[in-house]
Structure formats: structure tokens, C-alpha cells
């Protein structure tokens, strides 16, 4: 799949933003007043910034409101509802913390649950697609959720939680890669099932047109896959190893900032791979994967 910059930015930033909101909702850290204000502004910048980035890949962003109508079947529509509800609930909760110095914990818990739900709906947009076997797995929501929790803990300064969560995220990430590498073969979709042609090996002889097309650009993106192994190592180092080492060393603001920035960069590399490595079965019609 084509790793569109807008979608990588969106899933990375809003994943982190909603991750921070999860922890803030639970009162970890139990901040009020100005400090709470700074935390909430950061979380909203990330979450809303990500949502705005995602609007850039729409053909008609001005019709965006229509996307709230089909929540009965569409995970994308559910994501819209979940994110807006979360942002409203957390805004009320945050206002209590910032302006009234009071923590309405029930509302906070509700907001945390909704934040988790938002990340879940984002991951389900990809997970539901049977046409992309690498994504069609329970490990996809697991990966999105644990990364969001770990990144949120990191931003919220919850070192005690962040270290084990980061390590756990690394394990799920590796599992997602290992399962993903065999997913297309295991899906049972092959050139033979795609064409239904029996009686011999099927080879793509001529594509429909001499030039590329939307399908190839969007779904048969193979550029850079040859760097996948190296990028996986880089992603793990930046996303997990560097932040964990920074957190284990004696605390300093510089190290904490390094941990966050490194994690952010690592998640972006991981997201790039998430798209670039994902094989859409339509590639089989073009003799590619």
C-alpha cells in the first residue's frame, strides 16, 4: 500500500495524542492548573493535528461531515464519532482540572476509555480489510493500542509504566512482522484464485495499459521494500530501545525529551513499514505483490 505522508502523520500523531489523553483521564500524572493546561494543549495538538493531516488525503474534505452517518457498518465513520466524543469529554474534564482545580474522576475514566476506543477504531479501519492480509489480524489493533499506551505513558512521564509498555510494544511489533510476512501466502489468495485459470502456471503476460494507474500507485507500492529489514531494526531501536535506555538512566529533562522524540521517529518508521510492506491482493492481477 502507498505510504501516504498524511496517513502516516495522522496515525502516529493522533495515536500519541489520544495515548496521552488516556493517562491524563486516569489522573496520571495528577496535574491541575497551568501544568494540566500544558499537558492538555500538547495532547490536543497531537490528536487534532493528526486528524487535520488525515483530511488532506480526502478528495472532498468539504463534505467531511457526511462521514458521521454510516457508523452502523463503517469503522471510518465510527472513528469520526469516537474521536469527536473523546475530544469533547476530555475538554470538559480538562477544563475542570485547569480552571476549577477539581478532578471529576468518573468523567476522566470515561474520557480514557473513549480515547482507547478511538485508537481501536483507527486500527480497525486497517484490520477489517481482508484484501490486505498483512493487516487482517488481531495483532493490528494490539499494536496500535499498545503503541498508543506506551507513547502516552512516555509523554505523561509515567516511567514505571512506560518501560514495560515500550518493551511489550516491541514484542507485539516483532510478532506483527513475523505473522505479516506469511500472511499473503496463508490467505489462500493467489494468481490462480484471482484468475481462476487452471491447468498450468499463470503468468501476467501483458498489463491492461502500458502506463501505471491509480490501482498500482495506491495499492501496489513496492518502492523501498528492499530496505525493509534495515528499517525494521531502525524502527525498533528508535521506538523502543533508545527510549527505554533514556528512562532507565537517572532522570534529566534532556533525556526525557530525547526519549519522546526518538519514540516518535521510531513509530513513524514503523508506520511507514506498516503501509509500504502491506501487500494488497489486487497486485496479483498485475503479477506483483
Amino acid at each position, binding site marked *: *500500500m502507498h505510504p501516504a505522508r498524511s496517513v502516516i502523520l495522522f496515525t502516529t500523531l493522533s495515536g500519541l495524542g489520544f495515548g496521552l489523553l488516556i493517562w491524563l483521564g486516569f489522573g496520571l500524572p495528577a496535574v491541575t492548573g497551568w501544568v494540566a493546561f500544558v499537558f492538555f494543549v500538547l495532547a490536543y495538538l497531537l490528536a487534532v493535528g493528526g486528524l487535520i493531516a488525515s483530511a488532506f*488525503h*480526502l*478528495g*472532498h*474534505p468539504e*463534505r*467531511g461531515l*457526511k*462521514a*458521521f*452517518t*454510516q457508523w*452502523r*457498518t*463503517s*469503522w*471510518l*465513520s465510527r472513528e*469520526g464519532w469516537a474521536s469527536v466524543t473523546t475530544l469533547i469529554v476530555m475538554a470538559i474534564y480538562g477544563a475542570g482540572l485547569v480552571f476549577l482545580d477539581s478532578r471529576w474522576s468518573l468523567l476522566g475514566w470515561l474520557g480514557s476509555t473513549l480515547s482507547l476506543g478511538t485508537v481501536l477504531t483507527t486500527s480497525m*479501519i486497517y484490520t*477489517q*480489510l*481482508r*484484501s*490486505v492480509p498483512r493487516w487482517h489480524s488481531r495483532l493490528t489493533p494490539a499494536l496500535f493500542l499498545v503503541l498508543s499506551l506506551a507513547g502516552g505513558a512516555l509523554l505523561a512521564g509515567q516511567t514505571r509504566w512506560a518501560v514495560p509498555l515500550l518493551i511489550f510494544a516491541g514484542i507485539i511489533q516483532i510478532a506483527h512482522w513475523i505473522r505479516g510476512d506469511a500472511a499473503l501466502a496463508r*490467505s*489462500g*489468495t493467489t*494468481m490462480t*484464485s*484471482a*484468475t*481462476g*485459470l*487452471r*491447468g*498450468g*502456471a*499463470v*503468468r*501476467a*503476460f*501483458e*498489463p*491492461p*495499459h502500458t*502506463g*501505471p*494507474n*491509480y*490501482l498500482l500507485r*495506491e*495499492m501496489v507500492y513496492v518502492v523501498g521494500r528492499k530496505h525493509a529489514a534495515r528499517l525494521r531494526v531502525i524502527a525498533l531501536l528508535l521506538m523502543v530501545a533508545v527510549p527505554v535506555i533514556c528512562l532507565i538512566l537517572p532522570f534529566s529533562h534532556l533525556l526525557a525529551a530525547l526519549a519522546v522524540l526518538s519514540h516518535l521517529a521510531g513509530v513513524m518508521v514503523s508506520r511507514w513499514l506498516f503501509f509500504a510492506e502491506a501487500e*494488497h*491482493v*489486487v497486485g496479483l*492481477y*498485475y503479477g506483483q505483490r
Partner: protein
Amino acid sequence: MTQLPTETDRKMGLVIDLDTCVGCHACVISCKGWNTENYGAPLSDQSPYGADPSGTFLNRVHSYEVQPEDGLAQLVHFPKSCLHCEDAPCVTVCPTGASYKRVEDGIVLVNESDCIGCGLCAWACPYGARELDAAEGVMKKCTLCVDRIYNNNLPEEDRVPACVRTCPAGARHFGDLGDPDSDVSRLVDARGGFDLMPEQGTKPVNKYLPPRPKDRLEQAGAAPLAPVTEEPGGFLGWLDRALDRLPGGRH
């Protein structure tokens, strides 16, 4: 509404004969011609006469080579457009309700004025039957020529999809695949019609008919003729020898 109907009154669709298709791409052209000036936004081209031409098509013809273990390779031309699936994953993922499946005839359509161009339906379709138009930013797909098949302003023989009307080889058939007695259903039965990617669970309405077994060279009767001579004789032989004698010739 992106909830799929549990049952449609009819299941209108295409039957494509891979034995008969000659790969002329006439259906591709007639599809583009009809659909660029009728239902919805035109099918745009980007730099059609430039170095890197590209454009929106609702129907594309692939060609495959099937290589049996023994015997000669066989070329199969393979037209592909929306299969109007019963369990259409492209419909349920749509956040806006722009994509829908009609109860009356099972046709899967996009209401372009509701489409936000998110592209998710194109991701969900395993067949590559949907293309986001680069100029209009809305999703385009085969409508089964919904503006022809019920169009009383057209002569009756034209009330079929443009691709079916055009195909010079008669490789494309249109009808109700939900009716077991229709011509298309009987054709599918008789020729062993099959689904594309059945394991994807989309339950396509369109069916494909397999290529018939071909004659084998050794069964064809005539053996290759034995060569009469290795050396050219007569005038050509003289010319050959004469040229060899010229400077620079073979000695």
C-alpha cells in the same frame, strides 16, 4: 445506506467468456466512451499524450499466459470490472453512505455528491474495480450502465451495458444471475462458470467462463515437413557462391 441488503430482487451482472475474448480492448473503449459522458463525473485522463499517460477506467483487460506442465503455453485475455458482489466489502466500509447496493437489482453504485474521496472502498475491493478519479476526487466504478439498461429512449438492443453491446467476439453476456432459468445462469451452468477469489468471501455476481481445452500440436495431424536440401541451389546457389568469391567473402 452502507448496510448491505440481505437479499436483492434480481442479481444483474455479467458473464465473461475467457474462451471467446480475443483481447481487442473494444469493451474498454466503449465503457470509457459511454461513461465519460453519462452517469456522474467524467473519466479523466492525466497527460494522455505526454510521457507518462494515465487515466480512470472502469474496465481493464489483462492478458495472462498459462503454461501447462507439458504442451504449449496458452494466452488468455481477461477483462475485469466491478463484479457487483453480494457481500460487497467496498460498501460496508464507506463512511458517508455514498456507496450502496441496490435492493431491486443488486447493482453497486456510488452517489458521487456524497463521496468524500477517502479511497477506503478501493482498498476494500480485492479486485481493483474502483478508481479514484484524479481530476474530480470522487470514486468511480462500473455502474453496469445503469443509465442504458432501463433507458426507454434507446432502441431495445442497446439496453445492455456498453461493453456487452460492443464486444465483437460475443464474449460478454448480461442478465439476471439470480434467476436460475435466465440465459446467463444456464450459460454459467453449461460452461462451469466460476467466481474470482472465492476465498475473499465477497460472493461476486459476475461469473467467468473458463477457456476450453485447446488442440495439442501432436494431435493436429500434420508432422513438420522434412528439409529438402541444406545448400541453396539454382540462381540463389549461384548468387551465394558468387558473393562468396568477392573480396571479404567467405572462403
